[in-house]
């Protein structure tokens, strides 16, 4: 029997459950409430110990909801419920209703949600709750530092990045973000979230239309590629920022990328060259010999399909065929996976499918 990696139950959570706990149903301040049991099936004959506390807390929670009680004890109970199951969105709703009904101190709530997120940072509800509190306080002053804290534990936490982007856009907090992104990329140049953030910051501040900015970005990206050539994010970024202008017409780009081939080769580099050649063909660029460019592109597609990126051979064969069909001077090339030609075509396809 091979060992299985268990779903993670937070150690603190488990400890909490196993400890001696003074059940709510036994507390005299709660005696007036009739606990409401979970209602999605018959109760089991034998209850397992760790579910006792859970049942107790949530039975009480349901009782409070049923009576629509808005009290301090209800507020305290939401914290217990959240500790047991922070993904239960109804508990968070109720807590927000109580925060407003009881006019609770929102600064205290910020401390609370900070602790909860630090404990369980991969949960939609906790981040949405934090956003609501920030909105109510209209105070983003702690946010960037807090998110940086969370990202220092997991630099790709999708929720954390959403929150960060929201804060920056809502409160116009753009200063220092590019520096922050660079720090993250120093730590892990393959952090796709950080590359996305780089695009986000620049798009919303200077933009890419200034040629000095664009050149700075191109050089920055090429430098990162030299450090770690097998980096999808860097190549995607380079492609993304140059799309509008066109890869083949960017001065010196072909030379710089070709130069990298010896020491920094990767399927991404080869793919980038294919894109660049395709752009040269599409724009009918006078700086490129059209036939030679087509041949080079086809050669690279073949290299990728047969050797360097075989898992994506279908894609590379598709690119090859498209290039042939669009820019080649011979008969159209088809494959078994292409849709059949329209019935109004003059001749049936006679080309064999790809080897």
């Amino acid at each position: 029997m091979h060992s299985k990696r268990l779903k993670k139950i937070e150690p603190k959570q488990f400890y909490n459950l196993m400890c001696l706990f003074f059940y709510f149903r036994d507390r005299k301040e709660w005696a007036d409430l009739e606990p409401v049991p979970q209602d999605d099936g018959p109760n089991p004959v034998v209850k397992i110990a760790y579910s006792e506390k859970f049942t107790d807390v949530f039975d009480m929670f349901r009782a409070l909801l049923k009576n629509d009680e808005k009290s301090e004890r209800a507020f305290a109970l939401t914290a217990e419920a959240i500790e047991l199951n922070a993904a239960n969105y109804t508990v968070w709703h109720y807590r927000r209703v109580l925060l407003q009904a009881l006019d609770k101190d929102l600064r205290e709530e910020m401390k609370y949600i900070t602790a909860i997120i630090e404990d369980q940072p991969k949960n939609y509800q906790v981040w949405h709750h934090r956003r609501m509190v920030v909105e109510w306080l209209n105070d983003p002053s702690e946010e960037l530092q807090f998110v940086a804290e969370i990202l220092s534990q997991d630099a790709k936490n999708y929720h954390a990045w959403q929150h960060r982007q929201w804060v920056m856009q809502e409160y116009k907090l753009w200063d220092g973000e590019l520096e922050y992104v660079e720090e993250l990329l120093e730590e892990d140049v393959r952090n796709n979230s950080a590359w996305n953030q780089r695009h986000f910051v620049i798009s919303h501040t200077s933009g890419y239309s200034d040629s000095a900015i664009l050149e700075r970005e191109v050089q920055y990206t090429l430098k990162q590629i030299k450090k770690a050539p097998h980096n999808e994010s860097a190549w995607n970024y380079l492609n993304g920022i140059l799309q509008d202008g066109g890869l083949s017409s960017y001065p010196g780009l072909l030379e710089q990328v070709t130069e990298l081939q010896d020491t920094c080769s990767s399927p991404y580099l080869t793919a980038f060259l294919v894109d660049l050649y395709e752009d040269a063909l599409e724009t009918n660029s006078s700086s490129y010999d059209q036939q030679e460019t087509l041949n080079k592109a086809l050669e690279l597609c073949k290299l990728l399909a047969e050797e360097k990126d075989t898992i994506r051979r279908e894609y590379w064969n598709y690119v090859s065929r498209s290039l042939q069909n669009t820019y080649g001077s011979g008969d159209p090339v088809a494959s078994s996976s292409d849709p059949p030609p329209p019935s109004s075509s003059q001749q049936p396809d006679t080309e064999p499918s790809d080897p």
Partner: protein
Amino acid sequence: SLSLLAESDDNNFILQGTQVKDVIIKPDAPNTLLLDKHADYIAAYGSKKDDYEYTLSEYLRMSGIYWGLTVMDLMGQLSRMNREEIIEFIKSCQHDCGGISASIGHDPHLLYTLSAVQILSLYDSINVIDVEKVVDYVKGLQQEDGSFAGDKWGEIDTRFSFCAVATLALLGKLDEINMDKAVEFVLSCMNFDGGFGCRPDSESHAGQIYCCTGFLSITGQLHKVNADLLGWWLCERQLPSGGLNGRPEKLPDVCYSWWVLASLKIIGRIHWIDKAKLRSFILACQDEETGGFADRPGDMVDPFHTLFGVAGLSLLGDEQIKPVNPVFCMPEDVLQRVGLQPDLLS
């Protein structure tokens, strides 16, 4: 290719001299489809209602039921589930505002409204709930910029755009929202790499891409997608193990076999994936003892990954499984009965 892999540290392997984040499939991993075991696993799931994990997941129960029923239907085993009990349960979960909650005593939410409508479509029992009120609820969540909130608390996410149109499509009421604005918002979430995130400028993510391509299919706007660019980004999710990840430099997970594969099917580029390698990854995620699928080989199974493993295999053409619709993740025969044929690119 296994000989090119040398283990460096946990889940980081060296392939042809460079670090690749991936898993290694052990030689004794399952390599045949164990449908009967999966059916037994799902049929028994939730019958032990004191199970901690089951209790913990009450907040998503409606979706849990949808995952279980759908995978059972795909395996031709729907009759083993308790139809009457489930329909009664759903009726108890519709609130006055029309929205449907994950479970009794929970608040309504778009996610669980969609799951409920999907379940009732499977059971051809849509009219046990107040359909007009569901439509009102969905309409009421559309914002000025065309986006949809998940519930009255206002979280915005393209997942909810998908939930909204999928729900209305299944009810035959797509014309009740501001379609142009809804489309405009989703398209504003298209990124420089051709992918989509949860809000404008959010990082491209396979789960969000599934929601957005599904949305654009339902709303007849797939021509707005850059299919070659997005298809390339999606097929780049395939790792040497054959599994798919959700964004660059992340580990493979069987649920991405659905999000990525369904997206590729929708945009007409499913053949860009190495199908044989993906199939062997998915099969390796099975648990031969308990039945069910885990996120990756060797981990604990759950109904969520079981559905997406089986649905992924269906998309790859496994004939032991019913054809699955890539937009709705429901059996094709159910959608035919409902009369829905969402566009796919060829």
